């Protein structure tokens, strides 16, 4: 591990914690996904995973040490950083993005039509968000097929971010009931309740990555090149 990699990870960890804390008061809005995804793609999977682990541990100083949350973060974010870094270096097959988006569109359409057993007060909002995700999936699909290479890359990253955000909640639906010892009925209630957080976060992840991926990639690449020119340790990040 090069000192410069450690320094970059340290700065990124601070940025992730600051971003999470600053936007913690805005319901359903987060920038950790787009920041970590872009950072991992530019700086590589190793740097991304190291940052994700540091972020998962250090955020506990603010939000407290809850074993289920810590475990969730330590499993999800390093995996997310690793997938982002690997797909940055070795892009997924071109067909994978449309498949992810079609699956997401089909699932959200099915749930919007069939309905979810959530609180009657939240049901209209959940339904509306499912329709929004259905629309975003089709929109990303159109962007992916109709745009130039770089915008297509952003659409692909956005679809990966959306799918991973869904997986984050599904992982929580497994980890928390297991660590808390919930019965199947209570676990089912926790699963359905999770949609209230998952849906706005998925919308936010898809849109923030679509809009911010390219500018952030440019900024991180510039930082990487600048670091490379001004360092004595080679300036390349091979994983």
């Amino acid at each position, binding site marked *: 591990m090069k000192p410069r990699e450690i320094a970059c990870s340290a700065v990124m960890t601070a940025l992730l914690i600051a971003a999470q804390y600053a936007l913690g*008061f805005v*319901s*359903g809005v987060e920038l950790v996904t787009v920041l970590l995804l872009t950072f991992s793609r530019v700086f590589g999977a190793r740097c991304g995973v190291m940052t994700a682990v540091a972020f998962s541990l250090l955020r506990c100083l603010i939000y407290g040490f809850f074993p289920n949350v810590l475990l969730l973060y330590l499993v999800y974010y390093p995996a997310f950083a690793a997938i982002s870094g690997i797909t940055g270096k070795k892009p997924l097959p071109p067909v994978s993005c449309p498949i992810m988006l079609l699956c997401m569109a089909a699932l959200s359409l099915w749930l919007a039509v069939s309905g979810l*057993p*959530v*609180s*009657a*007060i*939240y049901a209209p909002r959940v339904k509306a968000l499912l329709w929004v995700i259905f629309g975003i999936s089709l929109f990303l699909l159109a962007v992916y097929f109709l745009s130039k290479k770089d915008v297509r890359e952003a659409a692909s990253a956005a679809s990966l971010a959306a799918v991973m955000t869904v997986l984050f909640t599904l992982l929580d639906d497994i980890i928390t009931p297991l660590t808390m010892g*919930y*019965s199947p*009925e*209570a676990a*089912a*209630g926790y699963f*359905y*309740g999770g949609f*209230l*957080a998952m849906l*706005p*976060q998925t919308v936010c992840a898809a849109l923030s990555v679509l809009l911010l991926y390219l500018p952030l990639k440019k900024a991180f690449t510039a930082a990487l090149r600048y670091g490379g020119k001004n360092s004595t340790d080679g300036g390349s990040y091979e994983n």
Partner: protein
Amino acid sequence: MKRITSILIAILIFTSLCGCGAETAGAKVVESSEKLLVIEAAEDGGSLEDALNALADAGEITLVSSESEYGAFITSVNGREADAAANEYWAIYTTLGELDGVAYSSSEYGTFEYGGKTLSSASYGASGLPMSKGELYILALESY
């Protein structure tokens, strides 16, 4: 003219008072102490948050909450703020169980005994918990 104005003012005051009565009619305070607030739904409709806000507007209780992904997060009731440093929080319990296929509480999350009844920990926050006539809702200061 003065008489008409007086009548109009009287009607306005009367309708305002009726309005206040309607807001608090949705729920009544059964018990209110430093670490406990018990309310009973007097009619169906609205959320626990709506009922608490109506009671607060009527001056029967004081309430402070912040917004979260899961709706209102109650931080203070009747001036008693949950001390985060001491791991305190305002827990919600209710007798409202399953309604229209949706489970609004679970005894697995915790229970609270009150007046010979066992209330279960709410599956939703105050914003997502519907008021159902005759059901009890308890806000209890607890710590973990």
